[in-house]
C-alpha cells in the first residue's frame, strides 16, 4: 500500500478509537457527578418519591453501562437521542446554535492566522526589538488573565462605558448573524486575546530558526530586501509549523468558546453545553462532546496530513 495511504488509514483508525474512548469517559464522568437529570429537574423539590418517579421516566434506573451501550448503538446509527428533561430531539436542541458557534470560531481563526503570522514574523525579524518586546509583554499578560475576566473588562469598557459595542451578544434568530456583526466583535477579541500569545510565540520561534538557516543568509548576501526575504523565502517554510500551531489552538479555542459564549450570552453550543451539564442532560452533553472530539481529531488529522504533504522529506519517508 502507498505509505501515505497507510498513514491516513492508521490515523483514521486512531481517530475512531479516540472518539470511542472519549465517549465512554464523558458518559461515565457525567454519570459520576452528584445528582442526575431527575434531581436537577426537581431542584429543591427532590423528595425521594418524586425523584424515583422521574428517574424511571428518564430511564435513569437502568445501569450505567446499559445506558451507555444504548446511546452508542444509537449514535453509530446517527440517532443523537432525546434531551432528558424535555424529550426534545438533541439535534433540534443543538440545531442552529451550532452554526452560531461555527461563525464565532471561524471568524476567530480567520483573524488569528494572519495576526499571529504577522506579529510572529515581525517579532522574529528583530528579536528583542520594540515590536518583539511589546508584543511579548501584551500577549503574555493576556494569557495570564482568565478569559472571563478579559471578557468582563472588555464588556465594561467598550459596552457599558463607551457604548461602542453591545455588552450582550444576543442573537436575533430571525436575522443572520452578519446582519449585526457588532455582536461578534467583543467575543472574538476575547478569544483572540488569549489565543494570540501561544501562536505568536510559536511562529516567532519557528521564524527565528528559519531565518538562521544558511540559505536565508545566502539570500540576504545576495541583496534581497528584508520583506521579500520574509515573504518569499522564509514564510513558506513557516507554513508547516504554522498549520500545526493552529491545529494545536483548536482544542484550546473550543474551550474558550464555552467561556466567551457564557460571558456574552452568545447563543452557541458552548452555552448549550453549560446548561446541559447543569441539568445533567446526558444525551446533549454526549452529542456535544462527540462533536468537539470529532473537530479536534479531524483538525489534527488534516494538519498532520497537510504537513506531510507539504514536506517532501516526510512524504518520502511516509
Amino acid at each position, binding site marked *: 500500500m502507498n505509505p501515505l495511504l497507510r498513514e491516513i488509514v492508521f490515523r483514521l483508525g486512531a481517530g475512531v478509537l479516540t472518539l470511542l474512548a472519549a465517549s465512554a469517559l464523558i458518559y461515565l464522568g457525567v454519570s459520576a457527578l*452528584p445528582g442526575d437529570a431527575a434531581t436537577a429537574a426537581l431542584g429543591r423539590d*427532590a423528595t425521594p418519591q418524586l425523584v424515583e*418517579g422521574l428517574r424511571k421516566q428518564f430511564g435513569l434506573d437502568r445501569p450505567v453501562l446499559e445506558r451507555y451501550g444504548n446511546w452508542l448503538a444509537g449514535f453509530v446509527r446517527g440517532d443523537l437521542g432525546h434531551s432528558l428533561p424535555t424529550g426534545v430531539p438533541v439535534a433540534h436542541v443543538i440545531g442552529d446554535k451550532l452554526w452560531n458557534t461555527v461563525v464565532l470560531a471561524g471568524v476567530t481563526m480567520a483573524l488569528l492566522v494572519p495576526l499571529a503570522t504577522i506579529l510572529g514574523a515581525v517579532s522574529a525579524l528583530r528579536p528583542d526589538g520594540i515590536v518583539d518586546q511589546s508584543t511579548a509583554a501584551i500577549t503574555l499578560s493576556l494569557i495570564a488573565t482568565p478569559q472571563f475576566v478579559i471578557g468582563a473588562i472588555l464588556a465594561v469598557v467598550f459596552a*457599558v462605558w463607551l457604548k461602542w459595542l*453591545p*455588552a450582550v451578544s444576543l442573537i436575533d434568530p430571525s436575522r443572520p448573524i452578519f446582519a449585526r456583526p457588532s455582536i461578534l466583535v467583543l467575543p472574538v477579541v476575547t478569544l483572540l486575546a488569549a489565543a494570540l500569545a501561544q501562536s505568536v510565540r510559536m511562529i516567532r520561534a519557528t521564524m527565528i530558526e528559519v531565518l538562521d538557516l544558511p540559505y536565508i543568509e545566502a539570500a540576504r548576501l545576495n541583496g534581497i530586501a528584508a520583506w521579500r526575504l520574509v515573504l518569499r523565502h522564509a514564510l513558506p517554510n513557516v507554513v508547516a509549523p504554522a498549520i500545526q500551531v493552529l491545529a494545536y489552538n483548536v482544542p484550546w479555542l473550543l474551550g474558550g468558546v464555552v467561556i466567551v459564549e457564557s460571558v456574552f450570552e452568545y447563543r452557541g453550543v458552548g452555552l448549550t453545553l453549560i446548561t446541559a451539564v447543569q441539568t445533567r442532560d446526558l444525551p446533549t452533553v454526549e452529542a456535544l462532546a462527540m462533536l468537539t472530539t470529532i473537530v479536534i481529531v479531524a483538525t489534527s488529522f488534516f494538519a498532520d496530513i497537510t504537513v506531510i504533504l507539504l514536506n517532501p522529506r516526510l512524504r518520502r519517508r511516509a
Partner: protein
Amino acid sequence: MTGQRKHRDDLRGLSRRDLLRLGVAAAAGAAWTGGIVRAPSAAFAQAAPTRGGTLRIGQRGGGASETLSPMRNVNEIDIMRTHVLYERLYAYDANGGVVPQLAADASPNPNATVWRIKILPGVVWHDGSPFTANDVVYSLQYIATKANNANGYTEIAYINPSNIRALDPSTVEIRLDQPNALLTTSLAARTIWMVKDGTKTFDQPNGTGPFKFQSFTAGERSVFVRNSAYRTHNGPYLDALEIISFSDETARLNALQTNVTDVMSQYPLPLAKTLTANGPIRLLRAPRAFTETMYMAVDLPPFTDNRVRRAFRLMINRDQMVKTVLGEFGVVGNDLFWPTDPDYASQLPQHAYDPDQAKSLLRAAGKENLSVSIYTGDAGPGMLDSATILAEQAKNAGVTITLNKVPGDQYYTAQYLKVALGQGGWSARPLTTQFAQVLNSTAPYNETHFHNADFDKLTDQARKTIDPKKRRELWVAAQTLLWNEGGYIIWGFQDNLDGYAAKVHGLTPSVSRWLGAYNFTDVYLS
C-alpha cells in the same frame, strides 16, 4: 411545593468567579453612572401612567428544561411566566398575607370540614370563555391527583379529589376528611393555579392572568401581550412583556446596564449598595423576604442535647453577622420564622449574644472544645459568608467549626437533609405552610429532623381552630416550643432585591417573591 428558592434559580449564590466578574462590571458601571447628571427629582415623576411599550425582563434561564406548564415547573423563569399568565383562588399580598384573587368569598361550616368558595364573577379566560366553578374543580382535582405529579400536590394532598365539586357555576364545595380552618392558605400557595376545565397540555397557555401568551422559545425568550379583557379597571398599561433567558449573571447585569433589558430580578446583594435612588438603575427592596438559616438536626450528635443547641444559638453575634453579610439589607432574627406573619411570636425575647453562657452550657453537656462541620456552599445569598463568620464567632465559645463546602448547584441534593449542621434558604410564606414543610413530623423538608409530638399537636389544633385569636395563642405556644428547644438558628432576615431602569414605574415590592411577585399589572414605562 410553595415558593422555595430552587437550587438552580438561586445560583445567585455567586461563585467566586461570578463575583469577580460582577465586581468588575458593576464597579465600573457605578463609577460611570455616578458621573452622570442626576435625573430630575421625584416631583416630576408622579405623572399619570402611560400606556404602551414592552418591558424587557432579563432572568436566569433554564436552557432546554424551560416549560410553560404551570403545574410542573422548577426554574424561576418558568414561575415568572406562570404568574403572568395564570391566577389562583388566593394569593399573597405585599406582606405575605393571604388575600383573595379569583375567589370572592370562602365560608367553612362550624367545624371546618366543609368549605364553600364563591368565585369572582365576570372573569374570562384568554380565549374568551367564562371562568366557572367547573374550572376550579378541574384544576384542584388535577393538582390533588398524585399521578399528575403537579408541584402543588403536597400542598393539597389532604383533599380527596372526589370531594371537590361545583354546586353551581359560581360555587365550589370542598369536603375534608379532617378539619382545616386554613384551607384558603393552602389555596394561596404559589403552586395552586387555575386552568381551564379539561386542559391536558400547556403549550398553548390559556389563563385568566393580566397577560396573554404570544410566543416561547425554551432557553431564549418568551413574549406576552396585554390581556385587554383583564378585570382590573386600568391595567395592564404595558403592551407586552418580553422575558429573555440568560445563562450568565454577568451578562444579565450588563444587559440591564446597557439598556438591553429594563428589569433584573435578584439583583446581586454585594452590588446593591452602589445603586442610588435617582440613578439610571434603581433598587426594588422587599424587606425580610428571605432568610438563610442554619439548622441543627436534633437527632444527630452533638445536637441531641438541647443544651448544645441553646449554646449554639447563644454563641452567634447576630448583629455582627447581619452587618457583615447583609449590610443595610437585613435585620436580626430570633430563630423563629417570619416576622411578617401576623401570628409571629414577637413577644418572645430576642436570643442574645452570650458566648460565656454558651461555654458553660457546653461544659454542662460535656461538650467542651467541640468540633463539628457545617454543610455549606454557594447555594444562596449569604450562605457561604454566614457559615464562614459562624466558624469565626464559634471560636469564642471554644467550638471549632469546619466548612464542608459543595458546589452551589449540588447543594440541595442527597446530603442536604442528612447532615447534623447545615444551611437552608427560605422565602417568606405563612407560618402554617412553613411548619408543614419543615417542622411537622411529616414535613418533606425536615431539616432539623424535628419529630416533636407536642409541636405536632399544637399545630394540628391551630389548623382546626376557626377563631383567629385562639388560633394565634396556639401558634405562639408552638413557636415558644421552637424557641426553647428547636434546631434552627435563624440569625437574620434579608431583603429581596431587584434592579430596574429609571424609566420603569409601578413595581411594588412583595415579600413572597421577587419583582413584586411578578405583578406587572400596574407597571408602565416613561
